[in-house]
């Protein structure tokens, strides 16, 4: 069959254009007709990273580096990543630059976050693995901590209510002891109510501001790191305190139940020094902790100058 | 009407034409004769503006070829049919396509009309069945005739023939001469015939121009060619006579055709 020249030429040009298009997409490593999305990452040091370098997650290539730019304001390296649609990157993932540039093996590696986290949304910024390690861990723990504190405090409230009811009964021999206890628990309740909000706000803020925090890591990374570690410790302490308070509350619960049921007497309670001691010391410890926290929450965050940001 | 006014032309050191003036009147058949290398073909190329004179002017229908814009020159050229000495057939095209070439570009004829016209032209030059052949498959004389067919295919007002009968046998020469006469009488074509062939001159020409060296030495009606005072023309004519003198056609030279 004889084809006209026009047809031959037209077909050749179109084929060439298609081949060029496909070839370019191929070498840009973009799936031919699928799409990709962008993520950003920030590093202190690009380590010779250039556009085209691969992005790997657990050693598997998931995308490529699109652009590397030094942010003149923050002096951090901002890297645009182009990721394939296929493998999802969970929220809480972190990026780092690995490999040695002289050997051409430089790449961005992504340490995936917890598996259950929802996939990260396109356009967001992956925190760097090194610079935000302590803060990052803190941020990760924050929600858990918050909910824990919440449940403990709710528990406490309930216990207090029961205690209150018990104490208001005038025929009780325990009245004297328990009046003192009431004084303390009122205090406790007050504190916990107040602190509940504070802690919550604090933790929420922590989450929200962690991004801003990261911006400062360039300048005072070391001191911040220390600060954050301390904050972490403080929160750990609070956590421990809360859990011991939880335990105490549980004990209180038991006592109250017994008292309620009438199965035990005040004498038995008073004759059981170990129980009393336990209650006392737990209550005292909790009290001191909360008192302490109420009076000077800043102490727990003392080195965290950024608290002013909140 | 073609007017050549005082044109001179040289190629490097070689002066080919000097101060040549010549008129070609509407409807006439002018023969330009002269020895080989006397500048006949060069003169012809000036008439269609392929060469620019060093000095002087060429007017075609009162327009100076040296000064008209190129687009206008192209329009003027479309009034011409030119038979080149070497034929100048497009060797990448078949004979048919060669003849159809100007028709395709400059006429509004349909494909079937073009076909008919090409066949008509081939018939006129006695080559009815070579349409499919390439120029390289043709003899020299056939090529010339295909070129002639191409020159006349657009029915031009002026036809310039550069040696239309050279290389042809006497019989075919006569066919060509008849064709030239036919085109002139039927279509009122103005013809310029460059030739060495005195027989042809006497057959077709109304007037004769004689180029010698760089000069146009003599111009006059064909009847006066034998009793002119120009010694060079005389020897040129005599040379032809001598050549043909032995043959039976010698007598025809002494009685010029009307």
């Amino acid at each position, binding site marked *: 069959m004889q084809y*006209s*020249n*026009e047809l*031959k*030429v037209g077909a*050749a*040009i179109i084929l*060439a*254009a298609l*081949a*060029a298009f496909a*070839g*370019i997409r191929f*070498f*840009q*490593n973009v799936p031919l007709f699928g799409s990709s999305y962008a993520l950003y990452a920030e590093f202190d040091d690009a380590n010779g990273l*250039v*556009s*085209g*370098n*691969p992005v790997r997650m657990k050693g598997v*290539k998931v995308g*490529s580096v699109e652009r590397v730019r030094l942010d003149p304001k923050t002096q951090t390296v901002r890297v645009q990543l182009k990721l394939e649609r296929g493998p999802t990157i969970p929220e809480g993932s972190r990026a780092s630059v690995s490999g040695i540039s002289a*050997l*051409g*093996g430089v790449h961005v590696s992504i340490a995936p976050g917890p598996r259950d986290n929802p996939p990260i949304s396109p356009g967001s910024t992956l925190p760097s693995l090194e610079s935000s390690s302590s803060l990052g861990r803190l941020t990760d723990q924050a929600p858990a901590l918050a909910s824990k504190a919440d449940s403990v405090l709710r528990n406490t409230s309930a216990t207090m209510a029961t205690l209150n009811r018990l104490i208001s009964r005038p025929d009780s021999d325990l009245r004297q002891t328990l009046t003192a206890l009431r004084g303390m628990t009122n205090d406790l309740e007050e504190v916990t109510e107040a602190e509940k909000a504070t802690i919550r706000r604090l933790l929420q803020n922590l989450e929200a501001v962690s991004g801003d925090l990261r911006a400062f890591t360039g300048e005072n990374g070391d001191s911040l790191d220390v600060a954050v570690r301390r904050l972490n410790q403080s929160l750990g302490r609070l956590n421990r305190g809360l859990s011991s308070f939880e335990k105490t509350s549980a004990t209180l619960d038991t006592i109250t139940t017994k008292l309620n049921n009438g199965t035990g007497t005040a004498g038995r309670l008073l004759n059981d020094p170990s129980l009393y001691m336990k209650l006392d010391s737990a209550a005292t410890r909790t009290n001191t902790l909360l008192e302490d926290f109420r009076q000077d929450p800043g102490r727990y965050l003392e080195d965290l100058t950024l608290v002013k940001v909140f | 009407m073609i007017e050549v006014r005082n044109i001179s032309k040289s190629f490097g050191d070689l002066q080919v034409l000097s101060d040549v003036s010549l008129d070609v009147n509407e409807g006439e058949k002018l023969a330009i004769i002269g020895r080989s290398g006397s500048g006949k073909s060069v003169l012809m*190329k000036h008439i*269609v503006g*392929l060469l620019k004179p060093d000095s002087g002017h060429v007017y075609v229908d009162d327009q100076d070829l040296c000064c008209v814009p*190129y687009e206008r020159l*192209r*329009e003027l*050229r*479309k009034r*011409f049919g*030119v038979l*080149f*000495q*070497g034929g*100048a*057939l*497009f*060797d990448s095209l078949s004979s048919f396509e060669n003849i159809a*070439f*100007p028709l395709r*570009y*400059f006429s509004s004829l349909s494909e079937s009309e073009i076909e008919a016209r090409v066949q008509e032209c081939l018939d006129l030059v006695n080559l009815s069945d070579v349409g499919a052949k390439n120029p390289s498959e043709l003899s020299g004389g056939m090529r010339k005739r295909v070129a002639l067919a191409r020159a006349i295919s*657009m029915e031009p007002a002026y036809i310039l023939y550069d040696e239309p009968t050279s290389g042809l046998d006497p019989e075919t020469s006569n066919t060509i001469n008849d064709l030239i006469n036919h085109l002139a009488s039927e279509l009122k074509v103005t013809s310029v015939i460059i030739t060495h062939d005195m027989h042809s001159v006497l057959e077709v020409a109304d007037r004769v121009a004689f180029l010698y060296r760089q000069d146009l030495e003599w111009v006059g009606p064909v009847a006066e060619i034998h009793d002119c005072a120009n010694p060079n023309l005389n020897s040129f004519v005599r040379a032809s006579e001598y050549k043909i003198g032995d043959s039976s056609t010698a007598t025809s030279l002494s009685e010029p055709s009307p």
Partner: protein
Amino acid sequence: MLDSLLAPFRALGQYAILIGRAFASVNEIRMYWKNLFIQMVRIGIDSVPIVALAAAFSGAVLTVQTAYQLETPFIPKTIIGSIVAPSIMLELGVVVAGFILAGRVGARIAAELGTMRVSEQIDALEVMGLNSVGFLILPRVLAGIVMFPVLYVVSCVVGIGTGIFTGHIGGFLSVSEFLEGARQFFQLLDPFIGFIKSVAFGFIVTSIACYKGYYTGGGAVGVGDSTTQAAVLSCVFILVADLLVAMLLL
């Protein structure tokens, strides 16, 4: 003496005017439409096999030699891919194609037009009322400009393809190693510059050949001279243009 010194300038001026006239007749392109496609087929499509052949060999040789030169344990093999692919896209694919076409297309055009000149075919075109410059030169130059990029794509695809294939068959470089290296250093600028070069080379080869052919003088020897000069000048100016584009765009 002065005359021979001025000759290149005169030639350049003559060339520029001729090509200018060719492009000035672009308004008549409809008239030369058919001719344009004939030239596109002759210059472009008919050249695909020879360009592909040259590209195949240069791609294979480049891969083998790069691999040979980088044979140290410290350099990852992917580097071979990151050298071979951009080299072909940026330089080798287009320059090798350019040289091949300077010979094939340039010589052909010069011989064709030269023969037409000495056998008065160009005069015959003119006398018919055609613009011979527009009719003969414009389609060829346009065909060169349009089809050289097509041939460049062919050259790249075949060159890189054979490069990959050679590494695979030779067993010294796997397909994915090559591709990873090639992708790692891929920049859109590389094929873009190659494309610009191919357009420039297409123009250079065809316009020089047209100039040489159109102004051929003196019979068969003249045609021979024009043909040779067209091929040689095209190659020289391809190198010059290659350098210029590289200096301007890199």
